[in-house]
């Protein structure tokens, strides 16, 4: 399984980098929250979960309509998320199991990925 080992190694390296970066980045992200969010937008987050950096923030890219203006990243790769009518969230790697928040969707994605890299999704 050389392929898998290499991917795992890459994942670990990315996680270590993210862990170092998270300490410096989490504070500014949190302080920027009030200005960036509107009344119904979820709280931004930036944390290391199971060795991987997960981030949630108001969207800047073209995918904003699916997440209601919110985007989620795993090790800086965008994770396609969607908000359901009842306020719950799903992602493309856990599409049939709604969770309460985008942070929970990011954590569920990390659980699902078992260290694998997320692939960027095409804009549509």
């Amino acid at each position, binding site marked *: 399984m050389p392929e898998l080992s290499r991917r795992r190694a890459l994942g670990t390296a990315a996680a270590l980098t993210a862990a170092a970066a998270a300490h410096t980045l989490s504070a500014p992200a949190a302080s920027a929250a009030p200005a960036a969010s509107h009344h119904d937008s979820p709280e931004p987050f930036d944390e290391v979960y199971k060795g991987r950096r997960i981030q949630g923030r108001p969207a800047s890219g073209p995918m904003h309509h699916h997440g209601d203006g919110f985007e989620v990243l795993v090790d800086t790769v965008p994770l396609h998320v969607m908000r359901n*009518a009842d306020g719950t969230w799903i992602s493309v790697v856990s599409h*049939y199991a709604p969770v309460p928040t985008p942070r929970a969707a990011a954590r569920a994605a990390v659980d699902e*990925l078992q260290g694998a*890299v997320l692939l960027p*999704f095409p804009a549509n």
Partner: protein
Amino acid sequence: MTVRKNQAGLSADEKRHFVAAVLELKRSGRYDAFVTTHNAFILGDTDNGERTGHRSPSFLPWHRRFLLEFERALQSVDATVTLPYWDWSTDRSPRSSLWAPDFLGGTGRSRDGQVTDGPFAASAGNWPISVRVDGRTFLRRQLGANVRELPTRAEVDSVLSMATYDMAPWNSASDGFRNHLEGWRGVNLHNRVHVWVGGQMATGVSPNDPVFWLHHAYIDKLWAEWQRRNPRSGYLPTGGTPNVVDLGETMKPWNDVRPADLLDHTAFYTFDTD
């Protein structure tokens, strides 16, 4: 005439023909086009925007047409093959013959979820996961790990007894038969089965697992059972609904078929129980 049979009753020969036809579609590249189409609709269907394949009234006719396309592709390889269905309310164990090495193969190993037996195991070399959302190229499953129980027959019956096909707002918040069958509300039938299987089946690229077709063939059969139980109930809505496919509107991506054209499955196939 095409007869769709319960997978539990297939002969060894029928299983062999089905598997061979699926593998040939994979080899030729036609299989992955179905995965791509499904994921595009999964990503594009939203509760407050345009919605066609999922979380909307057309969930059922859209998947009926999608399965018909797939079944026709299989039959172009082997005219004797039809889509079997998986009644997960009866065959509810990872020890079911569905998951045996002569058919779909079993659950994934604990380390990485990789399926290690059957014709779709990565080690057999015939089933690369090409349309994917992460770096893993092998088929994965975790049968029963993410949710313990498949739906029971009593839960299925409770949904089949809902007399209204669908209701405003025609999305994942709706009451009525369609959304309870899809699983965004209530006891949760269709969605829960995706989660129970795990692996790619729990993701937007769920048709990467051939059990996708057997699951949806049974969801499709439940629609037919619901029609039989509720003969005075029809597809809704019937007109003028923004972002939603009304009874007489055409559906993407085909643009040549309306829900109205797909209500009667006997125009295309029958079930072994019909």
